[in-house]
């Protein structure tokens, strides 16, 4: 066996090990879109709060007004739905472009590892909502979303882990300073997603 053959053999083993254990068709563009949805949603939320209270700041003074929270939750839910749909559609497109099957053992493991922290977080947020503990909702969104990214990162690009860690840190800050919860939410879901999506797009999808 020639040295060149061995090198190519080792390279093909390495690429196969990576391809078989990591889902690499995650679309960077969907991150940018999710960030834009979040910014639009936050803007609408800001307007709703502004009309009634003159600011983005959540304070105890109006926690008794639940209709405003219903509107905010509805917006947040819509953003989540749109973001997940864009991520799925664009990743499926990316996988098809590469000639790969998007429904394989790895994408299934990726989804289930993400779903467990995400669903427990969702239930936790619903509980917070029902108990009218509104000031920790933004923090809980960020923390549980960050944890689900960290847990999913073992089945995809390791960059996802860093996005997750940043979200968790922002979530903890939001818990510490609940008055600025929405601001941290905008930084995490809006700004970070756009930065992350742009980096990923140019690093891998080009």
């Amino acid at each position, binding site marked *: *066996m020639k*040295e060149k053959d*061995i*090198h190519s*053999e*080792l390279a*093909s*083993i390495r690429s*196969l*090990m*990576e*391809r*078989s*254990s990591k889902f690499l068709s995650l679309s960077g563009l969907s991150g940018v879109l999710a960030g834009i949805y979040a910014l639009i949603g936050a803007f609408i939320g800001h307007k709703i709060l502004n009309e009634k209270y003159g600011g983005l700041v959540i304070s105890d003074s109006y926690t008794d007004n639940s209709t405003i929270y219903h509107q905010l939750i509805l917006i947040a839910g819509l953003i989540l739905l749109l973001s997940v749909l864009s991520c799925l559609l664009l990743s499926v497109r990316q996988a098809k472009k590469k000639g790969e*099957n998007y429904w*394989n*053992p790895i994408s299934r493991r990726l989804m289930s590892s993400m779903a467990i922290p995400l669903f427990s977080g969702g239930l936790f947020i619903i509980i917070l909502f029902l108990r009218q503990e509104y000031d920790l909702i933004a923090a809980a969104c960020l923390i549980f979303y960050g944890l689900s990214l960290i847990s999913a990162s073992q089945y995809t690009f390791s960059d996802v882990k860093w996005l997750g860690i940043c979200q968790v840190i922002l979530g903890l800050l939001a818990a510490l300073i609940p008055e600025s919860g929405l601001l941290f939410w905008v930084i995490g879901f809006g700004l970070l997603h756009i930065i992350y999506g742009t980096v990923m797009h140019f690093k891998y999808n080009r």
Partner: protein
Amino acid sequence: MKTSLEQFDKAFENRIRLQIMSVLLANEHYDFNSLKELLDVTDGNLASHIKALEKEEYILVNKTFIGKKPNTQYSVSEKGRKAFIKHLEALENIIKQQKI
């Protein structure tokens, strides 16, 4: 160089067998159909190579059913893991020796 060649595992001479082992080393388990898609081989081809690796006791087979469909999962055995690592070391040794 003679010693390195002796370390070469006959079971891994075939490229597809080496690829099957690579996938199983990187994953806890993998099923037949996904393996077939990933390696882009035919049913019969994959089955014969899997049988060869099974005979060497390099892989473990776990047959279950999802509804009425058979779902066969493969995983690497301890013996297979050692043999694969030894094979990679042999490949590395050849590169090292040729550099000297």
